């Protein structure tokens, strides 16, 4: 084989392994509150626990709510931004951050909104302005 070809192949393999290694490092797995306690950048997926109080606090400028993870474990989540649009409608939440004691401090939050009204009754939609 020509030396140039070998260099090329080595370069490609080197680049690809580095890329894949870095990619593997930068993705993580969706987890639960319990498993998140020793992780620094945990992605916890779950649903909003609407049986508990939630709201934005003007004093601490944080939005606090309770979320149930996939094990049904409900924890307080503190999110340092205003309540996102569509929060109540989301049927799945992903909070990204860390556990401190019993509270999860989210730096980021992703919301998955329901597939558009598939099970809603079209006769019930009312313009919010008319209410």
């Amino acid at each position, binding site marked *: 084989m020509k030396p*140039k070809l070998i260099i090329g192949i080595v370069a490609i393999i080197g*680049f690809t392994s580095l*890329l*894949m290694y*870095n*990619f*593997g490092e*930068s*993705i*993580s*797995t*969706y987890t639960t509150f319990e498993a998140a306690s020793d992780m620094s*950048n945990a*992605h916890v*997926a779950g649903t909003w626990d609407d049986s508990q109080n939630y709201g*934005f606090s*003007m004093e*601490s*400028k*944080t939005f606090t709510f309770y979320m149930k993870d996939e094990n049904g474990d409900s924890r307080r989540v*503190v999110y*340092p*931004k*205003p*309540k996102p*649009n*569509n929060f*109540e*409608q989301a049927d*799945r939440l*992903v909070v990204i951050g860390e556990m*401190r*004691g019993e*509270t999860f*401090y989210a*730096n980021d939050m*992703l919301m*998955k909104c329901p*597939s*558009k*009204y*598939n*099970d809603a*009754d*079209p*006769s*019930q*939609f*009312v*313009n*919010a*302005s*008319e*209410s």
Partner: protein
Amino acid sequence: MLSTFAIGVIGKLLITLSFLSGLGSLIFYFLSAKEEKEKQLRIGNWLFVAKGLFMIAASVLLVYLLFTNQFQFYYVFNYTSLDLHPMYIWSAFYGGQEGSFMLWILFSWLFGLSLIRWTRSPYKAPVLFFMAMTQVFLIFMLVGWQIGDLTIGASPFRTIAEEMPNAPFIQANPDFVPVDGTGLNDLLKSPWMMIHPPLLFVGFAMMTIPYCFAMAALWKRKYNEWVGPALPWTLSANVALLTAIFLGGYWAYITLSFGGFWAWDPVENASLVPWLIGTAGIHTMIIQRKSSVAQKSSILFAILAYVAIVYETFLTRSGILADSSVHSFVDLGLYNQLLAFMLVITVVGLGMFFWRYKELPSPESEAKILSREFMTFTGAILLLILGLVIILGTSSPIIGLLFNENPTPPEISFYNDWSMPIAIIMALLTVIGQYLFWKKYSWESLFKELMNPLLVASVFTVASIVLGDVRNFYYMIYLFAGWFAVIGNGFVMIRLAKRKPKLIGGAMTHVGFGVLLIGILASSAYNTPMLDQQTKDYNARVRAGEVTDEQGFKVSQEVNMLNLDLNEPKLINDKYIVTYEGYDLGEQNRPGQQTYRVLFEPVDGGKPFYLKPEVYPMLATSTEDNVQWSVDPDVRTGLMSDIYLYVAGSSYVSARNSQIERKAGTQAINPEDVPETQTIKFSKGETVTVGGFNMDFIDYAMEDTTQLPPNTNIGVRAQVRLTHIASGQQFLLEPLFALYNDEDGKTYVFSPPIQLANYDLTFRFTKVYPESGEIDLTIDGLDEEYQDEWVLIVAEQKPFISVVWTGTFLLMIGFSVSILRHWDRERKKK
């Protein structure tokens, strides 16, 4: 008037006919390409035309249904509403998956017609064959055939009853027609969103053409001539995609609250990757045309650019990305069809390529490093690598399975960490590449030539580092690369402009690339939140680890919001005095919208200006007991920096929310929250300020007692003008005070309440003091401890966003200049 059933059948029939004629044209094009027969080609063309006409008829029907509000059709119900502006009904046409496929097919068909007109033998039949093939797949997504329990394709003409047969209201009444649709997503009601999707599909449709030419070249074993006609199409596809990406970014910047023009969202990546690979293809096609090299890579890139489009279409439309993207489509049950489309395009494309690989011309001698061929080729490879890195990141739900069972998307830093070094190398190479493109150099003579650009670029870099207070060494290198690309390519461009101005397209795009890099760094790395001193001090203490929360944990999150009380100025970033001056309740654009007035007065004596961010209820998703507020940021665009600002919360919104909650009874009433009753005493002409209102007691008049119930002794009607301070809304109240006797001669006071529904207030005129002329007004619902009106805003100063746009415009103009040049040449060939 046709029945719903008949319209549905006609719509589906039109799409089926379009599909069948598409299939027919595919067969005849195949025969014609195989046996090179003119007759089959002509039949193929007729069928091709027929397919488009059926699709046009179907589109016209759908648009008609949209405009006539036929909500019994699911698509119409889902994307329009009675109050939708006609302009946005067009947006609704391609607002859903089905309609966007139709639009894509229509554009693709139009370009197909021009291929029929302009493509020459031997490519004509095979090019049209592949063009027809992609369209057949796309139409197949829309057929909506019911075969037993299986539905093939999602028809835009399905009715609500077909969409949700098990819904109780359908079971009760199969002919149910909703009164109103759910309406177009409010975020899409933007002029930018009217042009962004069509342009994207123009780009997608045009990018099919290089794929078809490359496949035709492989089929007919004519590996050189295809580049001539394919190049202007690829360039045009690129301009369309770039413009679409720009519009999408600009729309995101001015309407969404994530505060930027790019977020590495999978859907954004879906338009960027084909652009990158298409650009790689343009590079190799240019050197193939000039020097008859790189035939293999031109064909490969042309195939990959379209494969990237189909792959990203698969990712965004199959529902795979539902968890990782904020705006991916919902799965319509097209997963298998999308997968088949992707696999066929990829396997046929790459299969043909490798089948013919040995035959494909190879260069006789290897290119020298200092040659335009080598440099241009390297540029193409770098573009491809960047595209592959982004594809890898976007594919995390699939490729991430290698690492764990439930992969999350990569962190944003993954994209930044990889794209930055690649961009730096690209930027440096563009200059060397451009110099070598026009003239041969040795290392020595090249270095001599580059002395001046290097010097100038260094001066600009040092100046930017000093002026911008850049401390990060990596950023300094990046800045230098950006400036070097601007200056070096600028030199080439100026030289060319003097001699052959038609040829400056390439140099100009490379200048634009450099400008873009500088703009991206400045606007994203030096984006600063606008805060008052108190918040900044707080953040400094958070950084120092001195703040703990109520549970004793260290607070790690800084506050990047600004709280403003009505008419109380705050000094922000030592630059502006910012005052919240209230809001206007406007009904004209969006019902229930508030427009906030925030005054910025520059400390250095510049001209004061207002920013007017908005908050409005999302009509499409709000219900009576759950209003969802959406924000519309305001941006003040400047040459040096933009101020970007949106309202994160306000006293108005929180008062409205608690009002709605009270009404809906969703929240238990807290005894402390029970509205207070207050009585104010004032005399004629006096103004009292209470609970955010100014109340002017203007006058009172005796009421004609004959109009009042019998036994009334006296009736007085007061005139009180109520002004809500923050919004400036005025109300004139005329409460009545009357005394009447019952049979026993007892005197009673009659003071009927007057309601101010929007504020949940009730007014009663409860007492008259005859000796002083004062009156008592009793108000229910007013908090005793009234808090001032406030607004919470997120404001950011974003330097040099204008530079990002300038870079993008230069790229667009540069590409357009090249299109003209290559198109011109192709035309003259005839």
